[in-house]
């Protein structure tokens, strides 16, 4: 299965700290995407990184991709209470639709 697996399952940090979440997957991919899900809401797309890219930034988000290790990381800098959510990676490979991992639950304590 190409399913991504996020690590850790849960993360609790203080406001202002950085949060790092990791995603590992098993097969070659076209791209990898990160999504956020607030409680009781749908997933929201954050960032897409293609297989030929190594790093991407969007505001306080930084995503890296290491295709040799089949892994990606999402870094949220200077975290805020509003960043409290679950974060999912999703991989796209071949002709199959996105496959989502089970997510990392991030709690940012004010």
């Amino acid at each position: 299965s190409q399913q991504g697996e996020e690590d850790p399952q849960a993360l609790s940090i203080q406001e202002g700290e950085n949060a790092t979440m990791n995603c590992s997957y098993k097969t070659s991919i076209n791209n990898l995407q990160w999504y956020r899900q607030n409680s009781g809401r749908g997933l929201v797309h954050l960032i897409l990184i293609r297989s030929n890219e190594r790093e991407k930034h969007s505001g306080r988000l930084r995503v890296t991709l290491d295709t040799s290790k089949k892994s990606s990381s999402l870094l949220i800098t200077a975290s805020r209470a509003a960043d409290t959510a679950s974060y999912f990676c999703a991989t796209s490979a071949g002709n199959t639709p996105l496959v989502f991992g089970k997510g990392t639950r991030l709690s940012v304590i004010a």
Partner: protein
Amino acid sequence: DARVTQTPRHKVTEMGQEVTMRCQPILGHNTVFWYRQTMMQGLELLAYFRNRAPLDDSGMPKDRFSAEMPDATLATLKIQPSEPRDSAVYFCASGLGHRQNSNQPQHFGDGTRLSIL
């Protein structure tokens, strides 16, 4: 901002009843996905459509689930008869796809929280 709209947001019903969930994708999006989310299984893809044609519904229990797109503005997911194990949050998502798969970001609705008693 354009949004995917799902109705109802919540549904509680007794086992054996028919359940219909509706989704209005973002105007112009040609790909619609149905997912089920539970604590145990995470987010599972049930079915998806491209240009209203079903591409894959292998994630769906065929004996009780059916998914359709009567027109470009409406997607439906039906469960008949419903069972307690169908209790979950069901999400619809839409996006733009140009090949068999969709590499583009998906836009999710806020889901239908279904409880089967």
